[in-house]
């Protein structure tokens, strides 16, 4: 996150401050530090709870809380993870999730980049009206599409396929993607494009050789968003899939069974959040940028 910003906003150190003054200044902020540490830890507890639960044998989970791991570290076992690895249907679900997330990340970015370029740099009648229409689609709830697409997919044989899910995610990812990319592309200096046009480059060439490379930061933000969004989806997959189950649907079906099997649910949930977390930590900066571009000036 904006580290440099935070540093820059640090209270300016007073020049010529005595040691006593310094101690006072730090002590005055102690309550804030303590409050933040406590809240920060509280925020982490639930996730750690899941992790430590996944390390316990089912009988130990039934006997007590995840904090047993601290009093009796010998209880920790990777048994449930190795069971999970040998569980064919969960492995298949993870693979399905990855296919959906990758497909539904690449496709909308490509489609949105084309449209974003047209909205930003092509001159054609009705452009602004069309763009306003795209903006209007931003908040249309996907519930508005579930029933007709369900029927359509049944007719076209797209029901219960990865492709069907990818196409649906692509469509509903587009308004935000077009909005974000158009706004980024429009900031590219005009001279760069003009000189390319004067040199006789085709619009496609300009798009591929200039816009895409220059738009990479925005595309990265978008990719992370779209990947997390589709990896974490439940509703769409639940509606248009039966045997095509991404991990969220697989966990949910375990959760709703009578006498839910915690030894599957806990490790499967943890595995399902490892990849999004890794993506988040690796590309935090882009993620935050995308968030800010999407919501505020």
């Amino acid at each position, binding site marked *: 996150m904006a580290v440099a910003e935070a540093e820059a906003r640090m209270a300016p150190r007073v020049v010529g401050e005595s040691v006593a003054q310094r101690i006072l200044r730090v002590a005055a902020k102690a309550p804030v530090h303590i409050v933040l540490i406590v809240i920060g830890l509280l925020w982490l*507890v639930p996730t750690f*709870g899941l992790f430590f639960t996944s390390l316990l044998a089912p009988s130990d989970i039934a006997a007590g809380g995840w904090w047993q791991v601290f009093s009796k570290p010998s209880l920790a076992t990777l048994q449930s993870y190795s069971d999970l690895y040998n569980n064919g249907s969960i492995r298949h679900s993870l693979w399905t999730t990855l296919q959906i997330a990758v497909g539904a990340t690449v496709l909308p970015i490509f489609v949105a980049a084309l449209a974003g370029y047209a909205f930003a740099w092509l001159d054609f009648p009705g452009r*602004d009206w069309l763009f306003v229409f795209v903006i209007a689609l*931003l908040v249309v709830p996907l519930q508005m599409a579930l*029933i007709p697409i369900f029927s359509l997919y049944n007719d076209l044989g797209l029901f219960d396929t990865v492709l069907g899910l990818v196409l649906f995610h692509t469509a509903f990812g587009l308004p935000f993607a077009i909005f974000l990319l158009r706004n980024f592309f429009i900031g590219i200096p005009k001279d760069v494009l003009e000189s390319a046009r004067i040199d006789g480059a085709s619009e496609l060439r300009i798009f591929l050789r200039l816009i895409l490379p220059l738009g990479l930061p925005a595309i990265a933000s978008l990719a992370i*968003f779209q990947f997390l969004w589709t990896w974490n989806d*439940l509703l769409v997959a639940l509606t248009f899939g039966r045997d095509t189950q991404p991990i*969220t649907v697989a966990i949910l079906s375990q959760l709703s069974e009578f006498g839910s099997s915690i030894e599957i649910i806990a490790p499967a949930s943890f595995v399902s959040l490892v990849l999004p977390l890794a993506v988040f930590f690796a590309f935090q900066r882009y993620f935050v940028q995308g968030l800010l571009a*999407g919501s505020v000036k």
Partner: protein
Amino acid sequence: MSGTSITAEPPPREAPPSHARGAGDRLRKWAVAAAFLGPAAVFLGVWIVYPAVRTIIRSFFDKDGNEFVWIDNYKELFTTDLLRTAIKNNALWVAVVPALVTAIGLIFAVLTERVRWSVAFKTAVFMPMAISLLAAGVIWRLMYIQDPDQGTLNAGIAAAKAVVSPTGVLPTASPSTPQLVGQPGKTLTLKKPLQPGDVALLGLTAIPPEAVPAGAAQAVDPQPVRNGITGVVWRDFKPGGGVVGKVEQQEQGLPRVKVDLRESGGKRIASTTTADDGTFAFDDLDAGRYTVAISGQTFAKPFGGFSWLGTKLITPSVMIAYIWVWAGFAMVVIAAGLAAIPRDVLEAARTDGATEWQVFRRVTVPLLAPILSVVFITMVINVLKVFDIVISVAPGSSQAEANVIALAMWRISFSGVAGDFGVGSAIAVFLFILVLPVLLLNVRRFRREV
């Protein structure tokens, strides 16, 4: 993520120079634009616009789609209990969650503003944004287990409670004779008033062997003392039968029981705890009448845990989980807005003698108002569509009480053998109408900025 509200608009620009020379050129421009926009148009048309129109039409037809029923499906929204519960709950969500998330985000953003390690804090709070709401639901389902030995939240409350009011030494016990009166689990008072020199026999039964406090020894018949009241609290039960109300061999004294001494007016004047053999004594008493009672603390039940996932608390419980996920979003966006406030404005206020609170209330918050409203509106849209977290936190037994619009729409349309696409479509349209003001707001903002 979805349902993002917008204000962003890059600086205005002039249109690219127009080389338009007649209809041919115009057509060419259209063709190029169409080539670039085509794929997006197909996706938006087939997957959003066409189904949206279909859904609106479908909402006026019955379950099978054959009969035009006008607004009957919409009437169901406000007449069936299931849907009324869902709408009521969703209204509660809108009333509570966006405001709370925005407020928490603002507090976190302000608190971290001048802290050196704020990045670590922000990462911890923001992290849940990356994981699925389903996983978040599983996480909180574990947090909410009722048994304090398993559920984290109840374990925390139990620990805090143990400090304030510890569990009694005898959670289950009842008087062995009618001499000892009181509500079950509350203070037990010896009916007969006592005078100095008397002996109080406080017999208890219905104590399982394993519930007898550790260290209990053979009960002893207390000796009377001249200026005091003595007595014994003991387990008035002898395997194989005994005499009720009499201390006998093999009957154990009950240690660490709190005994109160009250004067005739009822005011407590002294307390003591029993020894291993169950005996206690109040010495140096003035002549008069006293009553002796076993304190209610003795029978305090251990904390059984709040039923977070039960039908009463389920909606607040789901909301807590959701706030845990979204607070980070609000914090990050508001923090970015905070960073954009010019330093000298705040300094000027401080120089003029404003307190930190005044600066916050009169300068910071008004300057942040546009961002706060964006966060708030984004959250309203998200909350209207809330689905995953409800289905994953609420167990089957309380899902009816936790119901929300999106969940009801899905259940009515797709779960079970034959879904009702008529009512399902009507619910979807209802949801759409609810977000319509935001849609218009977005469009107006954009039109103004262009």
